[in-house]
């Protein structure tokens, strides 16, 4: 279908975009890569009266190592992250590798990191990575007011975040390297939205697990950390099938996933168990 009519505004910088959002009020939406918003507009699921185009704001397109962590500008494309693996180094290779799960080449070449986080799809790879790795996002509001939001506080529900309508998500910060992390998922066809996605970040000491984080997407309205599975990792043990199976079983027991056309709750639970095991194995082999 064709989208409903709207007015178009092109921002020159973040302050300009922020001003436009304030002036235009609640019926304005930001557009960057447009890979989620434009399909919704073409389906008329979204009918913004105003679009504020921020795609040209070069100040938001960067990948910057920051001490032990990494800052990624909101307008950095998935493809840029995917091809920056050598530059990111082992500590953040998980980000590059996860990009192969994001749609397809043409989607990754246009879609942006910040757009994906702000769109907050329950199965989105960036949302899952942010929750897994304790990322924070920076948002800019009217009068240049800047604040940071922890990923744990960012997602409220389906497609809903704590970013206010007149705020702009400008950057995501991954605070520490995750050399033994992996993301994996299952979809009916490669490139589709995941039915279930799992991500694991292990604290490894040689061949021994000393702790770790486990996050799942597609099992709740927002990506979730699974503390029962993390408890298994915290008790620790040799990085191998026994521990990983226990971790995966704990994760599967802890969730209460929805049922829809892509799978029943039981099917999703089984997927979660399999995918957590796989993610543990991949993470341990890094």
């Amino acid at each position, binding site marked *: 279908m064709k989208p*409903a009519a709207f007015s178009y505004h092109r921002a020159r910088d973040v302050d300009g975009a922020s001003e436009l959002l304030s002036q235009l009020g609640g019926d304005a939406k930001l557009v960057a890569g*447009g*890979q989620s918003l434009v399909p919704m507009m073409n389906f008329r699921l979204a009918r913004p009266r105003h679009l504020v185009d921020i795609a040209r704001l070069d100040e938001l397109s960067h990948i910057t190592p920051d001490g032990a962590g990494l800052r990624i500008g909101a307008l950095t494309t998935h493809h840029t992250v995917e091809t920056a693996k050598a530059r990111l180094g082992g500590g953040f290779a998980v980000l590059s590798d996860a990009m192969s799960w994001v749609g*397809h*080449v043409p*989607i990754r*070449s246009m879609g942006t990191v910040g757009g994906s986080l702000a769109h907050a799809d329950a199965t989105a790879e960036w949302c899952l990575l942010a929750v897994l790795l304790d990322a924070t996002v920076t948002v800019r509001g009217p009068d240049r007011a800047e604040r940071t939001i922890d990923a744990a506080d960012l997602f409220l529900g389906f497609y809903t975040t704590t970013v206010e309508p007149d705020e702009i998500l400008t950057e995501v910060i991954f605070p520490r390297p995750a050399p033994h992390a992996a993301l994996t998922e299952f979809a009916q066809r*490669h*490139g589709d939205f995941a039915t279930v996605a799992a991500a694991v970040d292990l604290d490894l000491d040689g061949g021994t697990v000393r702790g770790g984080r486990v996050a799942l997407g597609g099992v709740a309205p927002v990506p979730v950390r699974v503390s029962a599975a993390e408890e298994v990792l915290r008790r620790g043990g040799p990085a191998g099938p026994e521990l990983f199976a226990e971790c995966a079983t704990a994760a599967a027991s802890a969730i209460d996933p929805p049922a829809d056309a892509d799978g029943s709750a039981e099917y999703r639970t089984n997927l979660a168990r399999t995918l957590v095991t796989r993610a543990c194995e991949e993470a341990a082999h890094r």
Partner: protein
Amino acid sequence: MTDQYLVTLTVNGEDHELLVTARRTLVDALRHDLHLTGTHVGCEHGVCGACTILVDGAPARACLMFAVQAEGRDLRTVESLGSPDSPNDLQRAFSEHHALQCGFCTPGFLMLAEGFLASRPRATKAEIREAVSANLCRCTGYQTIVEAVDDCASRRRCAPDTTEGEATPEPGQNDTPRPA
């Protein structure tokens, strides 16, 4: 909200001025305003890939971009590749490998492959297979498309002086009707 915007689109190296409403998608502007009907329209929500063109060298869905957003970008459509009399090497490979039957998806696959091979000239067959999974073809079963792209890639690698990277058509080779 029905305001018209005057934009300049750079398509296949040529600048075009046009008046569009904000909601005019890039693919509709290419087809209806610039009469470059080589780019096809399928699903209009980014799934089928029939409208794939190159935006600043990278494959992108022309249905997921508004014409007003495309100003200042280097846009390339299938018309830039070759003509019926003189197809480029990728188009010849598609023909030789029977990588099309009805042809509806072909412009999208050609531009997807052009963009992909430009950035990944040494792509393996498995990587090509993954790349072409971006677009839908309901005739071929994809095998012949993978073979065509792979064959074109290896020929380009063997002849780096003439065909590596982007193939540039001669001016005037384009037989698609232009706006009056």
